[in-house]
Structure formats: structure tokens, C-alpha cells
């Protein structure tokens, strides 16, 4: 042990060990916070779904009656169907806009792609409730679109179906979710060399063909992530239908909000929420494998 080389090695090993201990200590506050304010609330949600409601107060218990109530309700079945429909349509539209958009940014307007991408990012942080509200002033009876249609004498009186309808919800959701769709697709396209698309074009492929047969398969990971993101986000949405969808109970998220707000039936709401989470997992898996098959 007197040999200097081994004592240097020993010091290095000690230093490495000390570094590693320090590293985990530095990660400790963040992980504690993460566990206390993310995992515990989700576990709390799970626990609440087994509680019993006694005199409008949730009481710790283990009952499956909440699930029985939630799963047998015909209202919920209808809402779930409508929610899945809405999520499918919104996801399809968002992808049909996001992919060409990311493609155009990355391959056609390479020079200006940073500016364009930044614009998309800004719109992502440009106000959730603000945007939803703004659609009211566009789609309302005296909104911009109806005013325009009447000024051009296309219609005589305002089209009332624009607001307080599924169209309004769709327009707002697609608008809000496009950045969420563009982001992963654009990120995945960064790994596709611009030369590849160009080569395909030089060999006579149309822009559409180059995009579909060369770039799409290479950026499929991003497309899948975008699809899953957008689908899940729509499944959990409730503010947009509440403010733009009219008085009807539009999506499953509104029902959960109702249980936690107006009706104070937290256990039933929690059971519905857990069911939704399970549904989201299944949906995400289905989307991933479906798109994998489509890409082949």
C-alpha cells in the first residue's frame, strides 16, 4: 500500500464515491418534491376512488361501488363515446396539419425555420384560458366570422351553430394542440438529413411522395408521440367544452369536474378519473401499435 500509484488510485476512487454521494444528495430535494406532489396525489386519487360517501363526506374505506356506479351509467357510456370520437377527430386533424407544417419548416423553409418554430412555441405559451375565451369573440353571433358572412351577404342572420357547439370546441382544441403536435414531429425530423428528401426529389419523386415515403417513416417516432400527446390531452379536456360547447355536458372531463365541483361526490369522480387514466393508457398503446403497423 506504500506504492504511490495505488494511493493515487485510492484517492481517485474516494473522490468518485464522494462525488456520487454529493450528486444523489443534490437530486434529493427535487425527487422528494416530485414524489410528494406528483406520485402521492395520484395515489390519493386512486385511494379516493375506493372511499365511501357518508353524508356528503368521503370516508376511508374499501368499496368498489364507485366503480360500479361509474361504469354502469349510460350517461357515462355516451360521454365516453363522444369523448373518444372527439379525440380521434381532433388528433387526426392536428396530425394532418402538424406533419406537413413541420415538414415544410424543416425542408422547404430551412432558412426561416427558427423564426417559424419560435412562433409556434410562443403560441404554446400564449394563454390557455385567454385563447378559449378569444374564440368566443370570433365565433359568436356578433363575432368576426358571422359579421364577415353577413357583410358579404352570404347569410342573412348569424349562424348560431358556430358557437356553443362541437365545432367551436374542435376549432379551439385543434388550435391549441397544433404546437403540441408540431413539437415532437419537428424534433424527430431533425434526425432526417435534408439531403435525403432532396435526393428523392431529384430522382423525380413529387414533394408529396418524398414526404410520405421517405420522411414520414423516418420521423414516425415523433408522429406517434404527437398522436398520443394530442389524443390524451383531448381525453382530459374540460374547460374548452365548458366555455365553448354550450350548456350540455359535452366530454367526460366535464363529468369529472362536476363530481369534484357542484355535486361533491369525490369518490365517484375519482373512480371515473382512474377509469379515464386506464383508458388513456390503453389508447396510447393502441395508437402506438396502430401507427407502427400503418408505417409498415
Amino acid at each position, binding site marked *: 500500500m506504500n506504492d504511490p500509484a495505488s494511493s493515487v488510485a485510492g484517492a481517485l476512487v474516494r473522490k468518485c464515491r464522494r*462525488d*456520487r454521494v*454529493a*450528486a444523489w*444528495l*443534490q*437530486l434529493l*430535494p*427535487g425527487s422528494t*418534491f*416530485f414524489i410528494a*406532489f*406528483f406520485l402521492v*396525489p*395520484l395515489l*390519493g*386519487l386512486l385511494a*379516493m376512488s375506493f372511499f365511501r360517501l357518508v353524508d356528503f363526506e368521503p370516508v376511508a374505506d374499501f368499496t368498489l361501488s364507485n366503480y360500479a356506479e361509474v361504469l354502469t351509467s349510460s350517461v357515462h357510456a355516451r360521454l365516453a363515446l363522444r369523448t373518444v370520437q372527439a379525440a380521434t377527430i381532433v388528433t387526426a386533424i392536428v396530425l394532418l*396539419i402538424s406533419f*406537413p*407544417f413541420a415538414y*415544410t419548416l424543416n425542408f*422547404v*423553409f430551412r432558412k426561416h425555420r*427558427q423564426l417559424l*418554430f419560435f*412562433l409556434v*412555441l*410562443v403560441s404554446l*405559451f*400564449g*394563454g*390557455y*384560458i*385567454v385563447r378559449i*375565451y*378569444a374564440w*368566443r*369573440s370570433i365565433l*359568436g353571433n*356578433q363575432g368576426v366570422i358571422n*359579421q364577415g358572412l353577413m357583410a358579404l351577404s352570404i347569410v342573412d342572420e348569424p349562424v348560431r351553430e358556430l358557437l356553443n357547439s362541437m365545432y367551436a370546441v374542435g376549432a*379551439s382544441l385543434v*388550435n391549441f394542440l*397544433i404546437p403540441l403536435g408540431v413539437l415532437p414531429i419537428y*424534433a424527430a425530423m431533425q434526425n432526417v438529413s435534408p439531403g435525403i428528401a432532396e435526393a428523392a426529389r431529384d430522382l423525380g419523386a413529387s414533394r408529396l411522395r418524398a414526404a410520405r415515403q421517405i420522411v414520414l417513416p423516418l420521423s414516425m417516432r415523433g408522429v406517434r408521440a404527437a398522436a398520443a*400527446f394530442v389524443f*390524451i390531452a383531448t381525453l*382530459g*379536456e374540460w*374547460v374548452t367544452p365548458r*366555455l365553448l360547447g354550450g350548456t350540455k355536458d359535452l366530454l367526460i*372531463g366535464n363529468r*369529472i*369536474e362536476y363530481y*369534484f365541483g357542484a355535486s361533491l361526490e*369525490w369518490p365517484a369522480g375519482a373512480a371515473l*378519473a382512474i377509469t*379515464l387514466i386506464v383508458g*388513456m393508457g390503453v389508447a396510447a398503446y393502441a395508437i402506438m401499435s396502430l401507427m407502427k403497423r400503418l408505417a409498415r
Partner: protein
Amino acid sequence: MTATTASAPSPGGWRRGLAKLRRRPVASAGFVGVVIVYLFAPLIVMVAFSFNSSPRLSFPFAGLSLRWYEEIFTDTLVLRAFRRSLQAAVVTAGITGVLGLLGALGILKIAKRARGFILAISAAPLAVPGLLFAIGLAIMYRQIGIERSIWAANLGHALIALPFVFLVVGASLERFRFTLIEAAQDLGASRWHAFRTVTLPLVLPAVLGAMLLAAAISIDDFVIAFFTAGQDKTLPLIMYGRVLKGIDPTLNAIGTVMLVLTTSLAFMAARRTTIGER
């Protein structure tokens, strides 16, 4: 873009010119333009109407005025909510800044595989819709007996902002040259000195940028505050209440103030970090 296509007439040059002309991305430009307009349409309309002197939300404008801004800046309810939103933004940025900086320093030193794992786990909240996280948080507060308040909402904001902080800091670490620290220490710098003069200046811009982003996320949040802030109403909660009541022209002004706040924070964040560069 088209200026370069005007090449000198050489044999076959006109044909190439024609081919390039056909490739001119008119359709692509139109598509991108339409999407950008669609993305910003609601915001543009809202900002425009916030300066309309008539309470009606219709064209043509009766005239330009600042009356709605005057109205909201003399409305104590709005002002109090405004102060609360700012407070939430500062607290959220503070919490995520401390946790983010410590986490960034820790994650620098651990093995690459563990680093990827931690970054992936920390992104999990991004996949959970706000509604589900918010009711979980409300349940936890109820079970341990914490009253609903702006502070309760703040902790939720910090949690949803933390993944962004980790992602931004993580992205900046991809370019971090670890050998710099070793070099400094080899050259005789103490650990503290190396940290202060090498590591910190390299990590800090990303952490500061991420804090600005966290502030923007906090100001923008509606769902978590809805379920956990109770009577401590923030600006988005005030907006929601007024939208439910019906048309209210002050909403355009409140929305514009919020928009300016969040976008300028996001803009500053992007300038400080690598997000804007890609």
C-alpha cells in the same frame, strides 16, 4: 429566395430555371401562412378588441380607446388577482429554480444511463392531463388538512413546471464539457472555486431561462388553480368566472395583459436557453 434563381443565360440554364420556378414553394408558403394565421387569430382578435371603444365585439371599430384597460386597472378584484398571479409566478420560479439548479448539478455527475432515466421520469407529469393531476392534488390537500390557497396552487404550478426546467437544463447539459471542471481542478482550483467560476456560469443561463418559463406556466395555469386555489382567485380564474357570466369587454384587456406577460416571459426564456436556437 427567388432572387438567386435569376441565373445568367447559359446552355440549358433556362430549363433549370424553369424547374426551379416550378419548385418555388408557393403552395408551401400559403400553407404555412394559413396555419400561422389560424394559430394567432384568436389572440390577434382579442388584442384588437381590447382597444375598441365600443363594448360590442363587432367590426367596424367605433374608435380606439384605453377604457377597458382603465377599467381593469381600477378594479380592485382584478388588481388583487393580478398581484396573486405575479406572486404565484415568482414563487413557482423560485421553487423550480432551486430544485432545478440542484438537480442539474446532481445530474451532471451521475452516470449517463441513470441520467437518461431520471430525465425520462421527470417528464412524466407532461403526459398527465391537468385535470387529473389537479384533482389528485386537491384530494391530497383535503386528506392532510391543508386549506385551499394560492400557496397550495403554487406547489402544483412548481410541479408541472419542473419537467420543463429539467428538459431545458438537460438540453443545455448535452453540450456541457465536463472536462472543463476537471481542467480547472487540475490547474489547482478548489472544488468551490471550480464550481463558482466554471460550472455555475455554464449552468446558470439555462436555469434562469427555465425559471422564466416556469413563471409563464404559472401565470397561464387555470386548471390547477381552479381546484386548489379556493378563494385566492388568480387572473385566469377571474376570466373564467366572467366568461361564464357572459360577454364582458374587460376580458379582452385582461387577456391581453396576460398574453403580454406570458409571451414576454417565454420569449426571454427562449433567448436564454437552447429552445429558441433549434
